[in-house]
């Protein structure tokens, strides 16, 4: 893609991402926050699209922007009693600081380690077909392990919703 086009589009999507994240953090109403979160998910899908990862973009929409958003909204409606009261805007406690610092360090280490690999984009986007062949050719075992992990999370989900019901 030519630089002149992808540049502005990237800028818009990045702005939508960061702006949405700020919107989510600063929203006083939790449902608003959830809506901002889905906006961020959609903007991230747009970024994937820009990186020619169309499969990833569509999966992002299917799982995060729709299914996860519904789960988040359901859980907010399930738990919050009074939505009129303001949510704490920011948490300046020591625990929050340590958590933020740790996240920053991990992010920095990941980027410093992989930086050169991220900057080198493959010339030709490897298609979804290639991904599929890899998944059941070389990565058959991980695929089955993924199924097991999904199965375990399913059992947890079933257990959790029975707990909520009773």
């Amino acid at each position: 893609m030519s630089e002149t086009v992808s540049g502005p589009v990237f800028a818009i999507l990045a702005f939508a991402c960061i702006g949405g994240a700020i919107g989510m953090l600063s929203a006083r109403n939790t449902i608003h926050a959830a809506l901002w979160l889905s906006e961020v998910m959609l903007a991230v899908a747009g970024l994937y699209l820009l990186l020619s990862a169309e499969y990833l973009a569509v999966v992002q929409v299917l799982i995060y922007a729709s299914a996860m958003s519904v789960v988040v909204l359901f859980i907010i409606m399930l738990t919050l009693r009074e939505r009129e009261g303001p949510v704490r805007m920011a948490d300046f406690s020591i625990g929050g600081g340590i958590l933020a610092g740790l996240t920053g360090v991990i992010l920095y280490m990941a980027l410093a380690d992989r930086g050169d690999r991220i900057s080198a984009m493959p010339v030709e986007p490897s298609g979804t077909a290639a991904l599929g062949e890899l998944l059941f050719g070389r990565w058959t075992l991980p695929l089955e392990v993924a199924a097991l992990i999904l199965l375990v999370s399913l059992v947890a989900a079933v257990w959790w919703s029975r707990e909520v019901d009773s």
Partner: protein
Amino acid sequence: MEGAYADSVLSVIGLALAAVAFILIVFLLSAVVSPRNPTPEKLEPYECGMPPAGVPWAAVRVRFTGLALLLVIFDAEAAMLFAVAGGLRGFPAGVIAVGVFVGLLTLGLLYAWRKGILEWR
């Protein structure tokens, strides 16, 4: 990455923008031609003339949350199936591998069924 592919990526973004723009145009048109004279009665929530009792934003016991969680898990399964579906033709070993994958999650569905999550309560 010149040419048709980049165009198709951008056109998805253009598509989304235009779909939103279309509605905004319709809204604008309506805002121009429609009357506007609100009265207190008009602005009440639609509850057949009764003043609403209580705040509707109280906690709702959303019994469907479990179903939504199931959907997330099965959507992840479906996404993986779509990824592998493209290259399975004439590849029995691959079909069996994916069959095991689907079988495991079908087991999960049966488990949820047995535990009564799929009932409407």
